[in-house]
C-alpha cells in the first residue's frame, strides 16, 4: 500500500481494490491491464502489461535487407503495410537509394489508404462498442433515427426511416435468437453507456455500413500491392509498373482502368469519412460531453516524427509535421532526430528483458542502433499467483513484454492526437480549420464551449483526432492521385530505381532509419547492414511508446497515465478502462518486438 508521485506528475495509489482485465479485447495482440480503484471507484493506479513476444528482429538477423519488409509487415496485420513501408525507407536510407516520384506518390496513396482504413475499422469495429449499446438500439424509433441522421449529416444518402427500420429488425431478430455472438456478455445494462436509442441505432447501422465499405477501400492496396492484408512492397520503388498506352497495357499492373478504379474508391472514402465517420464521432461525443477523462500524457507530452512530405525527401514539407511538445507548452515544438543517440532510448527496468546486469537494467537507456535484448521473464516479489498463472503482477518489478522508449528521458504519447496537437501547434492550416470546425459542431450539438486545449487531450479528443486525420488522409490521397496523373502525363513512368538492387553495389557497412506516421503513432525502424545482410534491426513502434511500462525513473507511459482518475460506474465491468485503452488503438503484436544484436543471446531463454 503506497502512494507514489511519478516524476512526470502523476500520483499513483495502489491501496484500493485491484481489478484485472485480461484479456483486453478488441485490440491487436494480447494485453493485460490492472488498476486499483479507491472507495469511490476512481482509478488511482494503472498497470498495463504487454503479454506477447515474437522476437521478429531476432529472426531478421542475417537476412537479405530487401526481404525485411515482408517480415516486419507481419508484425501487424491491422496496420498492415506501415511496417513494410518503414522498412523499405530504412533500407533505402541506409543504402542511399532514392525512389522515383511515381513510386513516392503510390506509396503515399497506399499509406493514407491504410491510415484511413485502419482508423475507420478501429472506430467502428474495435472502439464503438465502448460508447454504443447495440441492445439499446432496439428501443429506437426509426423515424427519429432518420431525423437524427439528417441533422448530423444531411449529405449521407442512407437515412430513410425504412432503412433504419430494416437494420433494427435484423438486429432485433438477432438478439431474440439468444445467440448474441460478439455481443455476448457485453456490459449492456451499465450506466456508462449514454447514447439515446436513436443514436445507438444510427451507430449500429454505421457499424454495418463501415464493415461493408472497409473492404472496398482496401482494394486500392490490392491494385497497388496485390493483396490486402499484407500488400507487397519493394526496396527501390514500387513493383506496380505503369503502362498507360503501350503494347499490352491491359496486362500491366497500372493502366487507365486500374487508376480509374483507384480514384473511384478514394472518392468513396472521402465521402464516407466526411458524411459518416466524423459526424458519428461528433454525435456520439456530444452524449459524453461530461466524460472528459482519459487525457493522461496527451495534455503534456506528445511526439511524432512527421510524415507525408509534399516534396519527396524534403522533411520540412511534411503535411503532418513532427516534433515533441513537453509539459503542455504548445508554443514550443522541439525538433526530433531519430539518428541522435541521445534522443530516442529504450529502457528495460520494468520489462521482461535484461541489459546484462541489475545496474544496467535499472538505469541504462539504449538508442535503437545500439540496442541489446535478452528476454528475462520473471515476476516481482509482490506478484500474486504463479509463474504460469498470474493473478496480479508486481509493477515495482518487471511486468511487461514491452520496453519503455523515452525521448530524452521523457515519456510521451504518440498517435493521431499527438500528430494533431503538433500540427495544430505548428500552424498547419488544414488541421486548424478541421479542429475549429469539428469543435464548433461539437459545441453546438452538446451545448458546450470547449476549446481545443480542453477537448483534445481526452479520450474523446483522441477518438476525434483519429477521425479528422482519416479525413485529412482522404483529402491528401486525392491530391496524391492528381499529382500521380500529372507526373505520368509529364512523361515520367518510372516506378523503381534498381541501380542499387544488386548487393554487390552496396557499401560493406551501412545503417539507416525509416519513420512513418503509422495509424497508432510515430513508427521507426533502425537497421544496420553488413556484407549485404542485416546485422541489426529494431522497431520502436507506437504502442511501445504508449503502452510502455514504467522506466528507470518511474515515469509512467501513456496508457497508464490516461486511466488515472477515471471514475468507474461498476468496477467489475471495465467499460471505462476499455474505452480509454481503445482510444489509443493498442497494437500489442507491434509493440512487443524488440531486437537482439546477437541472436545467440536468446539461446539463454529458458526452455523447459
Amino acid at each position, binding site marked *: 500500500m503506497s502512494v507514489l508521485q511519478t516524476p512526470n506528475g502523476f500520483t499513483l495509489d495502489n491501496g484500493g481494490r485491484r481489478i484485472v482485465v*485480461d484479456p483486453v479485447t478488441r485490440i491487436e495482440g494480447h494485453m493485460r491491464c490492472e488498476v486499483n480503484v479507491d472507495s469511490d471507484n476512481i482509478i488511482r493506479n494503472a498497470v498495463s502489461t504487454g503479454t506477447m513476444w515474437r522476437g521478429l528482429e531476432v529472426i531478421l538477423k542475417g537476412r537479405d535487407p530487401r526481404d525485411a519488409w515482408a*517480415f516486419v509487415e507481419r508484425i501487424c496485420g491491422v496496420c498492415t503495410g506501415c511496417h513494410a513501408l518503414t522498412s523499405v525507407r530504412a533500407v533505402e536510407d541506409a543504402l542511399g537509394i532514392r525512389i522515383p516520384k511515381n513510386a513516392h506518390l503510390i506509396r503515399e496513396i497506399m499509406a493514407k489508404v491504410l491510415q484511413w482504413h485502419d482508423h475507420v475499422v478501429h472506430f467502428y469495429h474495435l472502439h464503438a462498442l465502448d460508447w454504443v449499446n447495440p441492445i439499446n438500439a432496439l428501443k429506437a424509433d426509426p423515424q427519429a433515427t432518420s431525423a437524427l441522421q439528417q441533422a448530423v449529416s444531411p449529405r449521407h444518402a442512407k437515412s430513410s426511416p425504412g432503412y433504419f427500420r430494416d437494420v433494427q429488425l*435484423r438486429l432485433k431478430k438477432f438478439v431474440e435468437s*439468444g445467440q448474441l455472438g460478439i455481443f455476448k456478455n457485453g456490459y449492456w445494462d451499465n450506466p456508462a453507456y449514454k447514447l439515446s436509442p436513436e443514436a445507438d441505432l444510427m451507430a449500429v447501422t454505421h457499424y454495418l455500413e463501415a464493415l461493408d465499405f472497409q473492404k472496398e477501400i482496401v482494394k486500392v492496396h490490392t491494385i497497388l500491392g496485390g493483396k490486402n492484408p499484407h500488400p507487397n512492397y519493394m526496396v527501390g520503388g514500387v513493383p506496380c509498373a505503369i503502362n498507360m498506352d503501350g503494347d499490352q497495357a491491359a*496486362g500491366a499492373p497500372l493502366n487507365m482502368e486500374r487508376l480509374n478504379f483507384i480514384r473511384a474508391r478514394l472518392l468513396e472514402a472521402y465521402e464516407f469519412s466526411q458524411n459518416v465517420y466524423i459526424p458519428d464521432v461528433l454525435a456520439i461525443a456530444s452524449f459524453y460531453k461530461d466524460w472528459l477523462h482519459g487525457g493522461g500524457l496527451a495534455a503534456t507530452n506528445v511526439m511524432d516524427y512527421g510524415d507525408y512530405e509534399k516534396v519527396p525527401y524534403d522533411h520540412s514539407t511534411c503535411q503532418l509535421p513532427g516534433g515533441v511538445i513537453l509539459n503542455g507548452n504548445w508554443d514550443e515544438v522541439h525538433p526530433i532526430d531519430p539518428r541522435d543517440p541521445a534522443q530516442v532510448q529504450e529502457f528495460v527496468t520494468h520489462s521482461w528483458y535484461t541489459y546484462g546486469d541489475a545496474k544496467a537494467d535499472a538505469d541504462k537507456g539504449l538508442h535503437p542502433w545500439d540496442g541489446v535484448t535478452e*528476454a528475462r521473464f520473471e515476476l516481482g516479489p509482490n506478484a500474486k499467483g504463479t509463474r*504460469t498463472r498470474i493473478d496480479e503482477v508486481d509493477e515495482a518489478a518487471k511486468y511487461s513484454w514491452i520496453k519503455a522508449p523515452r525521448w530524452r528521458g521523457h515519456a510521451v504519447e504518440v498517435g493521431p492526437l499527438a500528430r494533431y496537437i503538433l500540427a495544430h501547434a505548428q500552424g498547419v492550416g488544414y488541421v486548424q480549420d478541421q479542429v475549429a470546425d469539428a469543435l464548433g459542431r461539437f459545441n453546438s450539438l452538446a451545448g458546450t464551449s470547449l476549446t481545443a486545449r480542453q477537448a483534445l487531450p481526452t479520450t474523446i479528443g483522441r477518438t476525434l483526432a483519429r477521425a479528422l486525420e482519416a479525413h485529412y488522409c482522404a483529402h491528401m490521397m486525392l491530391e496524391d492521385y492528381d499529382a500521380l496523373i500529372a507526373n505520368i502525363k509529364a512523361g515520367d513512368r518510372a516506378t523503381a530505381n534498381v541501380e542499387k*538492387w544488386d548487393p554487390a553495389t552496396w557499401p560493406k557497412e551501412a545503417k539507416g532509419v525509416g519513420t512513418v506516421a503509422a495509424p497508432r503513432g510515430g513508427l521507426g525502424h533502425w537497421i544496420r547492414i553488413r556484407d549485404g545482410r542485416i546485422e541489426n534491426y529494431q522497431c520502436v513502434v507506437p504502442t511501445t511508446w504508449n503502452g510502455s511500462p514504467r522506466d528507470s525513473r518511474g515515469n509512467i507511459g501513456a496508457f497508464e497515465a490516461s486511466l488515472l482518475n477515471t471514475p468507474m460506474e461498476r468496477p467489475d465491468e471495465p467499460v471505462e478502462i476499455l474505452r480509454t485503452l481503445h482510444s489509443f488503438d493498442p497494437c500489442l503484436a507491434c509493440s512487443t518486438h524488440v531486437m537482439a544484436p546477437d541472436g545467440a543471446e536468446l539461446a539463454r531463454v529458458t526452455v523447459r
Partner: protein
Amino acid sequence: MARLETFYEVMRRQGITRRSFLKYCSLTAAALGLGPELVPDIVHAMETKPRTPVLWLHGLECTCCSESFIRSAHPLVKDVVLSMISLDYDDTLMASAGHQAEAILEEVMEEYKGNYILAVEGNPPLNEDGMFCIVGGRPFVEQLRMVARDAKAVISWGSCASFGCVQAARPNPTRATPVHEVITDKPIIKVPGCPPIAEVMTGVITYMLTFDRIPELDRQGRPKMFYSQRIHDKCYRRPHFDAGQFVEAFDDEAARKGHCLYKVGCKGPTTYNACSTIRWNEGTSFPIQAGHGCIGCSEDGFWDKGSWYARLTDIHAFGIEANADRIGATAALGVGGAIAAHAAISALKRARHKGDV
C-alpha cells in the same frame, strides 16, 4: 437449452425474404463451385441446421487473418456473423473483455459440448513455459488445449496456425508451434496463407455449415477445393512463362507488359493457393497482377527458403547461405581442379615410368 435456430429461420426473422434466401443459396452453390443440382441440398441444409458456435482464439499472430476475414465480400462478413455462425468468442471483435470474456469460453464449451468449432489464429509458443503469449494470466497454450478438448473440429487459420509462419522462422526464438503439433486428437482443417484469402476463409466455413462435414483435405490437411493447384497453374501470366518471356528487373519493359515474374523470384510455381483463380479482395487483383512475385505465403516454412527475389532456395546447412547452383558450381570447380591436377600428376608419372609395368 432452447432449440437452436436454423439459418433459414434466422434469416427469415431478420427480414430476408424466401426469394432472397433461395437466391443466396444458389450464389453459395456457385461460389463453392457446385452445380445447380445441389442448390436444393443447400436450401435444405440452411433450413434445418442450427447456427454453430465458433470460438476464435488468438495466439502469437498479427491479426491479419481476422482482418482478411472481415473483408469477405460473398458472403459479407456481417451476414456470416449475424446469420450463419455464432461468433461467441473472438478477442478482436467481441464486446466483452477480461473475466466476462473468459466466462464465455466455459459457457459455450459446456452448452455446446462437441458441437462448436474452434478457430485458431496464430500459434502457441512453447518456450518460457508458454509465457511468451499470456491470456488471462496463463499461457495461451493452456487456453488452446482447454478449448480444443470438446470442439467438433479445429480450423487453423493462416500460416501461423497451420505451419508456424513468421515467428517460427529461423531461429524461432519463442518456439512457436503450429496447432496440429499441440492438438493431435481433433480433425484440423488448415487454411494457410498470410493471410488466407477472405472468400476462402468464409468459403470453408460456409461449406462446413452447409454440408455439415469437413471439406475434403489434401495430404497436408488443406481443403482440396482451394489448395489443390499452384498459383502458377492458373496464372494469367503463364503464357509468358511458357513462351520464355520474363521480367529481368523491376520496372523494365517486360514488367510494363506484364510478363512472367519467374526470374525476379516469383514463388507461384511452388505455392498452392487460390490467388490466381479467386484472387484477392473480391477478385480485384493478386500479387502477380500488381507486379510483385508471389512470396509463397501459404507454404510451409516459406520464410526460410531464401530471398523473395531469387528462384533458388538458400541452403543453410553449409554454414554460409548458398543455393543449389552455388554449391554445385563450387563443387564442380573443385572436382574439375582436382581432376586437372590428378591428370597432370598422372601424365608426369607416366612419363617418368615409361616402360615400367
